[in-house]
């Protein structure tokens, strides 16, 4: 067996492992009864998606996925759960018994699946030509970010400053003069 073929099989094996963990965690998000466990499963799903990005050599996007989704977004979700929880914890994500809602859910899921399958079926999937992804993508990003686009970079800092100030004002209110 050639090295390339062996490498391909290794890639497939890694992908299957990532896919099993990610899909299992996503099922956990839907089916577990305790909403905190749902949130933790969601974190695992985000990490699985990040692993897929890493496998596709999109390391920086995978890192952003971990920092922003598995870090920030899930912290927001877990805080929201902690702050509004008013039921028994193992009763927080019960299946809804109403038949109408189940039919609506099945209908929407079927629409989504049909759309996705048709979209996949009718796409040509040509092989990519030209140079592959740059090896040192993060380094190129750093050079662009701190070189040509430095104004936008500093503007992002100002945007974050505004976000913090806005969050503090929204949460605590403005002091009366």
């Amino acid at each position, binding site marked *: 067996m050639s090295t390339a073929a062996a490498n391909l099989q290794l890639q497939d094996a890694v992908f299957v492992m990532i896919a099993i963990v990610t899909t299992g965690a996503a099922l956990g998000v839907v089916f577990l009864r305790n909403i905190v466990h749902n949130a933790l499963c969601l974190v695992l799903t985000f990490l699985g998606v990040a692993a897929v990005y890493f496998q596709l050599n999109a390391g920086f996007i995978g890192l952003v996925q971990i920092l922003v989704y598995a870090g920030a977004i899930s912290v927001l979700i877990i805080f929201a759960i902690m702050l509004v929880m008013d039921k028994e914890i193992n009763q927080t994500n019960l299946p809804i018994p109403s038949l109408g809602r189940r039919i609506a859910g099945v209908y929407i899921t079927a629409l989504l699946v049909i759309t996705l399958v048709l979209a996949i079926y009718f796409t040509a999937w040509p092989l990519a030509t030209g140079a592959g992804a740059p090896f040192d993508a993060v380094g190129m*990003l750093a050079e662009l970010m*701190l070189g040509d686009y430095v104004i936008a970079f500093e503007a992002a800092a100002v945007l974050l*400053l505004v976000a913090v100030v806005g969050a503090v004002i929204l949460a605590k209110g403005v002091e009366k003069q």
Partner: protein
Amino acid sequence: MLTDYATIGVFFLLTVSFPIAAMALSWIFRPKPKAAPDDEKYTTYECGVDTRGKTWIRFRVNYFLFALVFLAFDVETVFLYPWAVKFQKLGFFAFAEMIVFIAILVVALWYAWKEGALEWH
């Protein structure tokens, strides 16, 4: 490329096996109790004050401010990362740029601090 991440895989295996090995070793070397452990042994804290009520409770809304401030500084980390990777090649100008970037965010931290967002009520 995938072999680069094999290093991370090795680290992952080590981090998983390390606590298992530590606990297994202490299990091997510890003195084995002769009698069966009583209820006191099974409490979470053998000494100290027992918790009262349930632990799955609603939390104070003040904590949400911590989450929001964390969010902003978490996004800041995304910008720090490429700079840190390329730090040695980028030179002094990039360093100065990053100092300006962090200085702007220190203003945010100062404001949150001034408004008492970081205080524990």
